[in-house]
């Protein structure tokens, strides 16, 4: 009988994400994945029921990793200005350390291939508590969540994208998202959300 090997499983996951990012979902075949991870097709099926199960498990695992990283040293009770800074730094670090994972999650965002009902509730609760406390203490204005998210986080993700792709607006030099630029942007975002 074949035994489970955590390292092998991790390698299969990592390679699967790379293939999906580089070649799309249709580009992921079990043969290609086996070759790339240096295992047999049969071995992949020991860990994953089928292609759908593989993609669903990748999504769950990456979501969990991202939540853990985002909640590191984050206190949902903290003042909004401080808490948002921690969120920004955590999210940015995660994006820079896991560029494949970020692109993969982006690809899955609007895909029917995964069931998102299994989303990490711990993360949702922490973020929701953080926002509601801040509104209660009159640190930010109450807003529909989509608008809140777009102001609080979309600028961060866009600038991280510029930074990772090493490009920016036409005719401009590569954009480097360094500490002064982070603080400059964060200040504007905080100002926009103030009552």
């Amino acid at each position, binding site marked *: 009988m074949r035994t489970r090997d955590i390292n092998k499983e991790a390698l299969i996951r990592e390679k699967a994400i790379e293939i999906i990012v580089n070649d799309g979902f249709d580009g992921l075949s079990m043969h290609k994945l086996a070759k790339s991870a240096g295992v*047999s*097709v049969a071995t992949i099926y020991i860990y994953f029921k089928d292609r759908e199960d593989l993609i669903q498990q990748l999504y769950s695992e990456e979501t969990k990793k991202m939540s853990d990283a985002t909640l590191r040293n984050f206190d949902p009770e903290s003042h909004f200005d401080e808490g948002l800074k921690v969120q920004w730094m955590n999210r940015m670090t995660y994006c820079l350390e896991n560029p494949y994972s970020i692109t993969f999650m982006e690809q899955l965002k609007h895909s029917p291939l995964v069931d998102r009902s299994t989303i990490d509730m711990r993360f949702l609760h922490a973020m929701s508590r953080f926002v509601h406390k801040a509104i209660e203490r009159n640190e930010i204005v109450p807003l529909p969540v989509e608008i809140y998210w777009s102001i609080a986080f979309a600028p961060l993700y866009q600038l991280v994208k510029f930074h990772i792709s090493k490009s920016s607006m036409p005719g401009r030099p590569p954009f480097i998202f360094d500490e002064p630029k982070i603080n400059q942007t964060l200040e504007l975002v905080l100002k926009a959300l103030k009552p």
Partner: protein
Amino acid sequence: MKDNYTTAEFVLIFRTNINRKKHVRSVSHLLDSRKEIIRWNVDLSDIDNVLRIEATHPDCTPVIQLVTQAGYACEELTD
């Protein structure tokens, strides 16, 4: 997580030509009726049409016989 299962369970992997949902349905009563098969599925989204079986014993022969008798190709996919 999955890694916690410690039951004496064997995963058997076969390459087949079961490539449509109706073909899967046509073998389902055969597979469901076997006590030694705990669960099974066919991956229709990949070229090998893998039949994956979690069973209480590691013997592939009965499964191959069962699927072949139903009129499909079935061979063990080895490492």
